[in-house]
């Protein structure tokens, strides 16, 4: 029987001015780190780009601290605010 894959879902948020290539840039970085994108929600509010992404880092090639550093770098380059937090936090806070 194949070994069950472990899963750790994190929520990535991105806010900033809308521009071409934000999702492409993030998706490329995540694919390189073997992170599976599970769900994406995005909208444009006025000129502001707002996105949440559920990403599975269970099989990633780096730990959450390193992933955060990568995302921070992309955030600086593209003038975006990016956060990453484990999904269980949101479940604890928003589901009784």
């Amino acid at each position, binding site marked *: 029987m194949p070994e069950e894959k472990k899963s750790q879902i994190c*929520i990535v*948020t991105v806010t900033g001015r809308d521009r071409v290539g934000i999702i492409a840039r993030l998706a490329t970085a995540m694919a390189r780190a073997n992170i599976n994108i599970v*769900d994406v*929600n995005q*909208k444009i509010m006025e000129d502001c780009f*707002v996105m*949440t992404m*559920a990403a599975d880092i269970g099989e990633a090639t780096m*730990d*959450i*601290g390193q992933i*955060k550093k990568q995302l921070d770098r992309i955030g600086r380059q593209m003038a975006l*605010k990016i*956060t*990453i*937090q*484990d*999904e*269980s*936090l*949101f*479940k*604890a*806070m*928003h*589901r009784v």
Partner: protein
Amino acid sequence: MRISVEEVFETVGMTLDHHFDIRTVTLGINLKDCIDRDLGWLIKQTQGRIVEKGQLLNHCATALEQKYGIPITNRRISVTPVSLLLEPLPRKTITAVRFAKALDTAARKADIDFLGGFGALVHKGVTAAEANLIDAIPEALSETQRICGFLNLASTTAGINMDAVAKVGHIIRDLAHRSENGVGCAKLAVFANVPEDNPFMAGAHHGIGEPDFSLNIGISGPGVVRSVVAQNPDCDLTQLSEVIKRTVFKITRAGELIGRELAGLMKVDFGIVDISLAPTTVTGDSVAEIIEAMGVGRMGSPGSTAALALLIDAVKKGGAMASGNVGGLSGTFIPVSEDTGMIRAVRSGALSLDKLEALTSVCSVGLDMFAVPGDTPPEIISSIIADELSIGVVNNKTTGVRVVPVPGAKPGGIVHFGGLLGSAPVMKVSKYSSAKFIQRRGRVPSPILALRN
């Protein structure tokens, strides 16, 4: 059901915009098994345990900080009341001071900013070892950086130990004069009904009813609560209470999640979540500003006590729903020096020492971090303490006092303590002395409330 975008951004906004953080994770460490007649052996055993567990605490807290993206601002240790550890040792102040310095060294090695527990429970009477420890407090706390002291001087079941209260007035004066601006006194809290599992400094200790290790967590979000209150400027107070309750539920859940996971990683028991609203000097992270956002003109003006009572009632209800392990102090901290709204209120004359005392009768956990002139007589300091502790004893709640007599300061001046401790306007104290009352000594009997069996 997946979390909605709005819910995600509500959480993200709490940390990014409103200073929500885990204020402290405090590991309680039992040291009773280290008690020995040889001070060297006691120090060796104690230091080993503190350094090992302190380093582990820092390591695991940093890992969870990254996982959840919520800052864990302080990592601290509380220990068994030190007076117990000193019981079999020679009754010399130098013994207590040497032990305090050894604890300080261990805390520094483990990179723990404050270690609490240098104190004693003397609400009914004082043993020879406890008297020795109390005598050693000025030297021990002024010659160490990271050690915090506490004394429990009263309880609802025992009454108030006025011998100890009278002595502490002198101890606080002595401690104040050994440090710049009296700041050493920021490391000493005296209590009525001290909790055994309080994670907040300076009053934390690992109580005698606690297990070998216990991880207690203090959450804090005055900024988050202020923001929801400000977003609801026109709703009635019943609705406002509801809004606060929901918000506190959320932040308490975050605290409970992180606390449990941290305890699991460290393989220690999870203790409690302390839901106290603890302000910092950062703009917006103020309890006084919540009260003002509720519609009170200035903290300390009429209406403040009612507003604070409503606020903390809502905080407790939201917190109790979120966690089955709410404990510690779980009241409000309104330290004058550490809350920009409180500083403003005192400076503008809206908040006096008398009103501050009134606020503690409903929910605040004491007169905290307020400055008085350095020449305030010890008997007046003792009288302020006796008043505050009697509120705790009669209302069956915790109250504490952390007072800083600032040498050379006059009422109206402002003194800067620096860092987390902020700055405090020097408050006016009554010119009428109650020295004769304090000098009577003895024990104020426990109230009739104590006879419950």
